[in-house]
């Protein structure tokens, strides 16, 4: 564990920016925050509440070329090769990425995703300012213990840095001023994390997250889906902004020579009207409520079945903010179900 | 050579919108010589009634795709005039910068893509690509710069999305402005190249003059070669002072011609001209050094009455707006850019906005009720103001050039219309305006 004063931390960030890796960090965007290429250390805002989009846009880009080809055949894989430092990832967002790592490597190994992922040096940071809709405490995602190369915790006058991996330790070479963190520093760090464990909770969930799959088991035909989905725009904002949504579409386009082209994948969302439409215009999830329900089931039942029970909602609250008719709040739905059909 | 001529150009090409040329000469006698405008009328002034103050720009921008920024600025100024909305100096400067991007875009498009084929005797710019690839690429490059410039300031090249009564919804970053400035500096050379190319074929522009009245904006405080602020002036205004833009209807004196779905105008004489040459004839002394240099290259002097020289005046203005913008960006950067909040309270009122479109002076007037809903509108676009003048030019041109034969005459008349850079789809509007008091 290392300690850096705020001033020395700025120097550390400057040194990273000057290194051969691209640095992406959290910056202000109007009165909100967003991840973007960092050009100077002063722009970094580790005191942010939540970013508009989760950092998933760097592990699973909105549009990613999978291959190039000549018409008639000869396909060539395109793999990410650029090294990247992702600076300022909140614990809940990192947990979402940890989950995605599992999903993209299990069964069929997706080396487009994994190549990009391995090129990233992940610098997480503990939350300083809770956002308006965060409920990470309810989901057990307010603090993270794995998946980062370095974890930064602000403790008043400076930062405690936990360099957990070889990558992280190598990067610490850019911070020659770092000193060994004292017992006192560590105690302060623990206090920050302990507080976050309970305080990042604007929408308290009335049960343990591990109970959610069982709850949903009994709620499939509950009227709540129709009630809520009545005003659903099928705009997919709850998908787009969610750190754990990873469905994608695949498309082709050719170059002007009409002889070469590329195939790419791009974000998709299960709330969108034609997500499950096949040729002949048969839509397997035609009703708004069935799409609306599917998202919640994916978060709290289907994906958990694939990744050892972890709930694929990390409580970032982005979908709550993004949903214009205010129906997407997962906690509101789970709590309503709990109230109505109770625990078993 | 035959003494009979029968020209009927149906839907003149390489102009924006639909116009016809009809000439009948029998035994050397001109029986018919007409400029007709059959463009489908679109009735904007009627359509905006009932729409809210903050939707006006969105609608009237669609009057014309080529001068959409100009229409947007004129209407936004009119709404601001009607609703007593103040605009900050920063927003004002950024808007002028936005406006200049359209001047460059439209002028390069006109001279480079639409007029150049005439000068090189080609039907369009397409056959010029293999003949003069470098020249074409230079023109494309300048056009692209202009469009990227509008993209940055207006949100997109056509139909701006950043304009709002009271200011701008989004301003560029200082970094973006600095990049723009660099690009503009690099564009100066391209403009000079384009001017040289045009100069090499400038003798193809017919030597034809007809004395007429030239109308444009004029700004005295500070003295500026203006496109955006000021009052209305004319080469016929001998000391009887500029006219305030709110009184533009007294200048335009619109009337319906049976030849046209667009209305025609007249002020001191039967017809008047607007556009780059009009601005030049009224304001040439205020051009930037590079603008003056380009004028000198072509020997263009104040008081020129050759309508074909409007093309050259456009080149002069290209140089002027680029050079002036480089300075304006310096000023913006020195002052530093600030985010500005806009808040507007609707109220009843009537207001006018007047700016120079690339092809001439443009007037918008609106009246709103207390909720800010539009109750009446009147718009007068530059091309309409030129229609009568084109007709008068025709009447002088045909007898003078008739001897050259039907094809040459037709080609000359087409070029003549094109030199006005008409934007015919802007057509339509109101006569006998009666505002609800």
């Amino acid at each position: 564990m290392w300690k850096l004063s705020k001033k020395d931390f700025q120097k550390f960030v400057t040194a990273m920016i000057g290194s051969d890796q691209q640095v992406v960090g959290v910056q202000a965007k109007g009165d909100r925050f967003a991840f973007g290429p960092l050009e100077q250390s002063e722009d970094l805002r580790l005191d942010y509440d939540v970013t508009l989009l989760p950092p998933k846009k760097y592990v699973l880009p909105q549009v990613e070329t999978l291959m190039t080809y000549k018409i008639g055949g000869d396909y060539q894989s395109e793999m990410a090769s650029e090294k990247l430092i992702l600076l300022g990832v909140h614990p809940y967002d990192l947990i979402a990425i940890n989950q995605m790592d599992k999903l993209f490597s299990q069964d069929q190994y997706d080396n487009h995703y994994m190549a990009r992922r391995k090129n990233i040096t992940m610098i997480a940071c503990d939350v300083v300012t809770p956002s308006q809709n965060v409920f990470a405490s309810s989901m057990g995602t307010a603090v993270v213990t794995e998946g980062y190369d370095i974890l930064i915790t602000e403790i008043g006058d400076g930062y405690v840095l936990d360099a957990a991996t070889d990558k992280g330790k190598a990067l610490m070479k850019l911070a020659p001023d770092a000193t060994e963190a004292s017992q006192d520093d560590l105690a302060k760090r623990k206090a920050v994390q302990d507080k976050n464990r309970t305080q990042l909770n604007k929408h308290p969930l009335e049960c343990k997250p591990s109970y959610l799959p069982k709850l949903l088991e009994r709620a499939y035909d509950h009227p709540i889906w129709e009630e809520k989905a009545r005003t659903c725009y099928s705009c997919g904002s709850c998908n787009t902004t969610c750190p754990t949504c990873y469905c994608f579409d695949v498309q082709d386009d050719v170059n002007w020579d009409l002889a070469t082209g590329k195939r790419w994948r791009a974000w998709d969302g299960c709330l969108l009207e034609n997500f499950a439409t096949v040729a002949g215009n048969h839509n397997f999830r035609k009703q708004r409520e069935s799409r609306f329900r599917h998202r919640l089931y994916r978060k709290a039942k289907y994906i958990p079945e694939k990744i050892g029970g972890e709930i694929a909602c990390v409580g970032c609250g982005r979908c709550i903010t993004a949903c214009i008719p205010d129906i997407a709040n997962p906690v509101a739905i789970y709590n309503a179900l709990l109230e109505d059909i109770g625990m078993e | 050579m035959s003494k009979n001529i029968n020209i009927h150009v149906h839907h003149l090409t390489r102009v924006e919108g639909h116009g016809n040329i009809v000439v009948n000469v029998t035994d050397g006698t001109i029986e018919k010589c007409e400029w007709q405008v059959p463009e489908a009328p679109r009735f904007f002034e009627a359509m905006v009634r009932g729409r809210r103050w903050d939707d006006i720009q969105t609608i009237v921008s669609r009057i014309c795709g080529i001068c959409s920024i100009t229409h947007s600025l004129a209407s936004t100024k009119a709404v601001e005039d009607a609703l007593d909305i103040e605009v900050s100096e920063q927003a004002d400067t950024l808007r002028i910068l936005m406006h200049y991007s359209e001047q460059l875009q439209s002028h390069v498009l006109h001279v480079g893509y639409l007029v150049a084929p005439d000068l090189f005797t080609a039907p369009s710019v397409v056959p010029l690509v293999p003949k003069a690839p470098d020249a074409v690429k230079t023109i494309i490059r300048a056009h692209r710069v202009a469009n990227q410039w509008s993209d940055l300031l207006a949100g997109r090249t056509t139909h701006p999305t950043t304009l709002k009564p009271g200011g701008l919804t989004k301003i560029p970053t200082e970094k973006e402005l600095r990049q723009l400035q660099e690009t503009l500096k690099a564009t100066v050379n391209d403009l000079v190249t384009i001017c040289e190319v045009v100069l090499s074929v400038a003798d193809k522009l017919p030597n034809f003059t007809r004395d007429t009245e030239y109308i444009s904006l004029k700004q005295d405080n500070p003295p500026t070669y203006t496109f955006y602020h000021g009052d209305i002036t004319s080469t016929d205004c001998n000391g009887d002072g500029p006219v305030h833009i709110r009184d533009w209807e007294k200048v335009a004196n619109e009337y319906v011609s049976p030849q046209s779905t667009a209305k025609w105008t007249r002020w001191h004489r039967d017809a008047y001209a607007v556009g780059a040459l009009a601005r030049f004839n009224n304001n040439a002394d205020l051009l930037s050094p590079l603008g003056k240099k380009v004028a000198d290259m072509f020997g263009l002097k104040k008081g020129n009455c050759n309508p074909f020289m409007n093309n050259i005046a456009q080149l002069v203005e290209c140089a002027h707006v680029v050079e002036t913008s480089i300075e304006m960006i310096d000023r913006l950067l020195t002052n530093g850019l600030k985010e500005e909040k806009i808040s507007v309270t609707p109220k009843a009122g009537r207001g006018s906005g007047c700016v120079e479109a690339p092809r001439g002076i443009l007037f918008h007037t609106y009246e709103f009720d207390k909720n800010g809903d539009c109750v009446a509108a009147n718009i007068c676009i530059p091309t309409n103001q030129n229609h009568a003048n084109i007709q008068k030019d025709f009447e002088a041109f045909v007898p003078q050039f008739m001897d050259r034969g039907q094809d040459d005459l037709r080609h000359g008349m087409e070029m003549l219309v094109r030199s006005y850079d008409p934007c015919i789809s802007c057509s339509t509007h109101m006569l006998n305006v009666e505002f609800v008091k």
Partner: protein
Amino acid sequence: MCEGSGSQKDIYLPELATIRKKQKFTRLEMYYHVELDSEKELGHKAGQFVEVSIAGIGEAPISISSSPTQTGFELVVRNAGSVTNAIHNLDTGAKIGIRGPFGKGYPVDELKGKNIVFICGGLGLAPQRSFINYVLDNRDQYDDVEILLGTKCFEDRFYVDEITKWAQRSDVNFVETLDVGCDQWKGNVGVVTTIIPKVKTDLSKAHVLVCGPPIMYKFVLMSLAEAKVPKENIFVNLERRMKCGVGKCGHCQMNNQYVCQSGPVYRFSELGHVPEAI
């Protein structure tokens, strides 16, 4: 973070294959015999599918219509959109991209020694044929074999030579029907459920394999329920939208099942918790 070896193959990258034979089947369906350029066999199981890739257009999941017991593999493609239309425009010798085989396929071994009834609707014959031919090639390993086939109209029948042979075999009960009759047609008329009663074997003890358009399932499954076929003995072959074929893109998901991985063939009893399936 999960480590995997960097040398793993790109799961999205198609392999080149060549169309060896092409034949027009119907107004909309075309038949293809395809071989991988690597000269390897696809190594598929009956009921699996491949992703066919046309560079510049896209990919489409297509069932393998041939039995694993022959060289190369066969596809029957219905012109339903961009990719399938592009496939139709290809001639013999043309290259296509192939990924797969994907999916689980039929429980070939489990059904050995059993009575099998195939119920095919329209294009549903294409995937079923991969198993039918396997069964017929290994006829002694299976007990009664019956095939019910329903097609919209006379012009839409395909694999006509082959089904004529099935009809002639004494060790197979082949029953065919058309939704709409016509002069050329002397056989049964009516939707496929109307010929279920013509099954000779005791349905309640048979294994029934169903494949057809989405609406067909509801009615066939109702008839099978009436005939007391245990749900464990019914297998359905489902279609879903697919963009990757490898369980990532999310499009084919029905409840917790990814059709490209755990399907497209399902034991009906196992779909009890998959309300979105049928």
